[in-house]
């Protein structure tokens, strides 16, 4: 069976390329740098008051008393919302309606499930009064011993991991692979808990008008949020109007509306006034998801020549005591290397934390740093250059499914990045290179990969009487540049110059654009836009080609092409007519059409769809003090069609920096007795600062993918982390000869290991 899809399906009258592919700067850039961009917490509707959450300082137990009277006595405090005093909800916040409904704490009981959980909400005329009111509640607790860390309890096999992936996958004969392997790498790694820490905290401004609700809140998925809120408050989704034009980052933590945001809506309902609720930084370490810690044992067997015989990747992850999200860490081993036998398996332990959730490259980030480190170990065990080892085991088809890749330019990524980096001639043995100052120098590499995912999204296109166009879609700009990239696609889809287009986005009143996650937003919404544009141009073409008075008469729908606001005859470019002329003659004020984008099930069953990349890193290590400094990183990525090279480079660069952070810096430190997070602030929760970020080269490798979606887009939001973390870790090994298997790599491991 041949699959005829995607680009070949392109309506003949659409020609992408005038806007797509251009390195346009952000359309919202000036608004942002001048402070005019209005983020959720910048809104102040008339009569608005402030809500502040009081959080639990124990991780497990019950709240036995709250001094509500003391809080209420405080000047300015209006009300205190508690389990005993709150608006009635239409739905149990612990109900599991669908795989995306996670349990949330909406004061349904006095139970404490984790530290930083909301136990009350104080509403006051000022932020200061609400803050002090929350402090005056002086909660008392009945404390139970907190379960903390990967050994907190009995491990069990989770039903699924990620969203609906099997917890265990077997391909080929593992035992035979183990038996056949003459070289075995058997290593156990640990990765820490991490928190999203978007610059903009979760915030909401909620206004009720009867049973209609208006909210300003950062959201990566307004449609999902509408559904959840509708269920909780027993009102139709259409009554909920979400405004979310800009996010100060989300990284997955704003994919689903969180408990604290809903508490803001409840507070507004309770007192019948508009309410603003903004989380404090420390309050973001609990109720809005996190990347759970993992312990991963990975066994990689090869023959003497370094050809893979088996990969057995097992991961233990934590989840909360009350809900199920399982970081699919081991799944990272499904697609990259051509091993005849592959097993991935997960087990889980329940702990007293908030429920972990999607955090930029969930599973891929935790799994890939381990896989890429272990591949480095295996290559070293075989005495083979890590790049050569990877090429030797290059997957021509997806190993676990046997499907061909829809496209895969990973070889070119390896070649380009290696060349740019100057990888050739790297000594195999570690601790061979020094710079002129005596620092140990190490080079490491990692392969990057991320699936090309599509969700479901819609768009509406309009051509107006003046010949200009409008594209509407409830898409989400997390700072990645959706306002710009989607507008570029819109302009091309409508055959218009960029400045002839009005692009509307960021509101739930517009067509549902699905979720900005899984690196699938541009692909999904881009397809919806493309289809909406194609449909509206088809209507125009219909009008023109069926009208005798038009120079396009008789050309047929496929016989015209749209360009710069005109339709041209394909066979005679000089015969053309403007959109305005077509509409004027037809006596129409506008024509409109909708379009949607979604994964193509036929194509998906036929092909494995992934973006790929190769990252090379250089680190220098002080030979006595153990201080590590990344000094160079080069990444080459093949991710299908590049809509805007500037934005794409910024996404990839940001991902690579996160990879560096994963390897060297980032970690939430939890007290093992109390379950409290000890570094819930940006001073102590370390991410790289500018001075840690080395010169970086980001290369995109051309990839034409006719199968993933109409535009051939694979997504770039998350892949940057995946190869980078391993590359940095491997460079540290190459510099020092010390293989640190606990991330982030800490100075004591290096100092004590250097001898």
């Amino acid at each position: 069976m041949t699959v005829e899809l995607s680009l070949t399906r392109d309506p003949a009258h659409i020609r992408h390329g005038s806007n797509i592919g251009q390195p346009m700067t952000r359309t919202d850039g000036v608004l942002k740098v001048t402070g005019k961009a209005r983020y959720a917490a910048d809104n102040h509707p008339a009569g608005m008051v402030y809500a502040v959450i009081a959080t639990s300082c124990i991780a497990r137990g019950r709240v036995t008393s709250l001094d509500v009277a003391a809080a209420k006595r405080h000047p300015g405090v209006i009300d205190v919302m508690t389990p005993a005093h709150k608006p009635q909800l239409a739905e149990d916040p612990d109900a599991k309606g669908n795989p995306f409904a996670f349990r949330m704490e909406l004061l349904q009981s006095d139970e404490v499930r984790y530290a930083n959980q909301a136990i009350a909400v104080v509403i006051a005329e000022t932020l200061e009064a609400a803050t002090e009111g929350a402090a005056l509640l002086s909660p008392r607790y009945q404390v139970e011993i907190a379960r903390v860390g990967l050994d907190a309890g009995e491990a069990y096999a989770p039903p699924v991991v990620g969203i609906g992936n099997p917890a265990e996958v077997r391909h080929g004969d593992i035992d035979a692979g183990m038996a056949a392997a003459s070289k075995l790498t058997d290593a156990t790694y640990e990765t820490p808990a991490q928190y999203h820490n978007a610059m903009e905290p979760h915030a909401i401004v909620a206004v009720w008008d009867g049973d209609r609700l208006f909210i300003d809140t950062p959201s990566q998925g307004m449609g999902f949020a509408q559904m959840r809120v509708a269920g909780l408050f027993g009102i139709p989704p259409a009554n909920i109007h979400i405004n979310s034009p800009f996010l100060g980052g989300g990284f997955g933590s704003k994919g689903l509306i969180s408990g604290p945001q809903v508490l803001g809506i409840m507070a507004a309902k309770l007192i019948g006034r508009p309410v603003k609720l903004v989380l404090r930084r420390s309050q973001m370490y609990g109720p809005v998801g996190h990347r759970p810690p993992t312990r991963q044992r990975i066994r990689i067997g090869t023959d003497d020549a370094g050809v893979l015989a088996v990969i057995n990747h097992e991961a233990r992850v934590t989840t909360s005591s009350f809900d199920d999200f399982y970081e699919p860490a081991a799944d990272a081993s499904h697609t990259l290397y051509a091993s005849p036998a592959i097993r991935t398996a997960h087990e889980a332990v329940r702990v007293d934390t908030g429920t972990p959730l999607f955090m930029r490259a969930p599973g891929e980030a935790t799994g890939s740093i381990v896989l890429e480190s272990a591949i480095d170990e295996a290559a070293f065990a075989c005495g083979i250059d890590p790049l050569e080892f990877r090429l030797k085991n290059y997957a021509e088809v997806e190993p676990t499914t046997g499907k061909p890749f829809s496209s895969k330019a990973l070889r070119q990524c390896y070649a380009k990045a290696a060349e740019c980096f100057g990888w050739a001639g790297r000594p195999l043995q570690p601790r061979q290179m020094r710079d002129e100052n005596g620092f140990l120098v190490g080079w490491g590499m990692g392969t990057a990969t991320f699936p090309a995912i599509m969700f479901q999204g819609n768009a509406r296109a309009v051509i107006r009487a003046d010949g200009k166009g409008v594209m509407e879609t409830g898409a989400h700009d997390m700072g990645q540049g959706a306002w710009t990239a989607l507008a570029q696609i819109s302009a091309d889809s409508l055959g218009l110059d960029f400045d002839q287009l009005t692009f509307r986005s960021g509101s739930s009143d517009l067509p549902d654009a699905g979720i900005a996650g899984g690196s699938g937003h541009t692909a999904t919404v881009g397809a919806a836009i493309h289809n909406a544009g194609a449909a509206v141009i088809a209507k125009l073409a219909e009008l023109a080609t069926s009208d005798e008075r038009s120079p396009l008469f008789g050309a047929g729908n496929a016989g015209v092409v749209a360009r710069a606001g005109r339709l041209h005859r394909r066979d005679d470019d000089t015969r053309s007519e403007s959109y305005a002329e077509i509409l004027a003659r037809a006596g129409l004020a506008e024509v409109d059409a909708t379009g949607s984008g979604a994964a193509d099930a036929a194509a998906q069953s036929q092909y494995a769809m992934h973006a790929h990349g190769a990252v090379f890193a250089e680190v220098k290590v002080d030979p006595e003090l153990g201080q590590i400094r990344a000094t160079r990183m080069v990444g080459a990525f093949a991710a299908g069609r590049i809509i805007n090279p500037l934005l794409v480079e910024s996404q990839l660069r940001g991902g690579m920096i996160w990879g560096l952070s994963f390897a060297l810096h980032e970690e939430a430190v939890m007290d093992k007795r109390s379950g409290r997070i000890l570094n819930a602030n940006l001073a102590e929760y370390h991410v790289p600062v500018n001075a840690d970020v080395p010169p970086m080269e980001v290369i995109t490798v051309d990839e034409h993918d006719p199968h993933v979606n109409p535009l051939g887009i694979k997504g770039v939001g998350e892949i940057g982390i995946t190869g980078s973390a391993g590359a940095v870790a491997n460079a540290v090994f190459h510099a020092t000869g010390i293989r640190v298997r606990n991330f982030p790599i800490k100075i004591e491991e290096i100092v004590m290991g250097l001898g």
Partner: protein
Amino acid sequence: MMNFDYVRPASVADAIAAGSEKGASYLASGTNLLDLMKGGVSRPSRLVDVTRLPGLDRIEHLADGSLRIGALVRNADLAHDADFARNYPAVAEALLSGASAQLRNAATVGGNLMQRTRCAYFYDAGSACNRRWPGAGCDALKGENRLHAVLGWSEGCIATHPSDFCVPLVAFDAVVEIEGKSGRRELPLEALHCLPGDAPERETALERGDLIVALRLPAAAKNFAGHARYVKVRERTSYAFAVVSAAASLRIEDGRIREARLALGGVAAKPWRAREAEQVLTGAAPDVAVYREAARAALAEAKPSGDNAFKIELAQRIMVRALTLAARGTPDRIPALPGSPFSSVAGA
């Protein structure tokens, strides 16, 4: 809101009167104090804003060759004062290795000296901490303590003093000028911070109402300008406190170390002057073997207070490094990565 009085006295005398009241706290730029208040760790009933006090923002060269730095001089202004950086390069380097540019622009000299420990349990109002609540216990002792003290700690408290600035200062015999209810007095900086012993809540030698008005660097401190370095190991290149740091200054004549000044940071509840090490170095030829011996002497009494044995090893190595760099000579310019082991790298 959490109500407290805010006063902005016009004179030092008024400030001391206001600051002597129960529950009063001096407020300089607030980069430390306000964070503590927001976290509920400090709840002063009265803030005495000292930032407008006249005459405390000057850098004065005194007749005896010493330098007097007003308590309100900003960390960044001091570090960027060309004279200061030339005469006391290790101090300038230490200042510039601290916090971030924004914080250094705000932070005052007095506030830097008086900043509180960064022990996470001290900041977490839900944890037991003898400093915050005498007798409550110390949750750090059996908790997350890889960055805690290895010298001078007690079972009562294993916290470290976080200042970078204080480390070279203590090496140079800096003196703190204090105004209080009973007038003016002076204290060697080395005596300002207390080791915890059995009274960890007593962090400094200041009495209620005592105001630091100035800091003095004696004339002799300038003699080390040619051989003075500060080295700081931290978990990222900027905007992080020291895991361990060292200030080393040497006076080298005729190929011999005539005088050495050494101090360690991040190892104890105070900036740690390493006098035994100085003795080992005095009279010796600058050489890595003698640096090692000095470092061993400096850490002879050290013991881990938790998961931090590596800091004893690291402290010795960083001392050797600081000495090596100091002996090599102070660079012409303060490096772009101040205090970093990578600061010697061209273009760093």
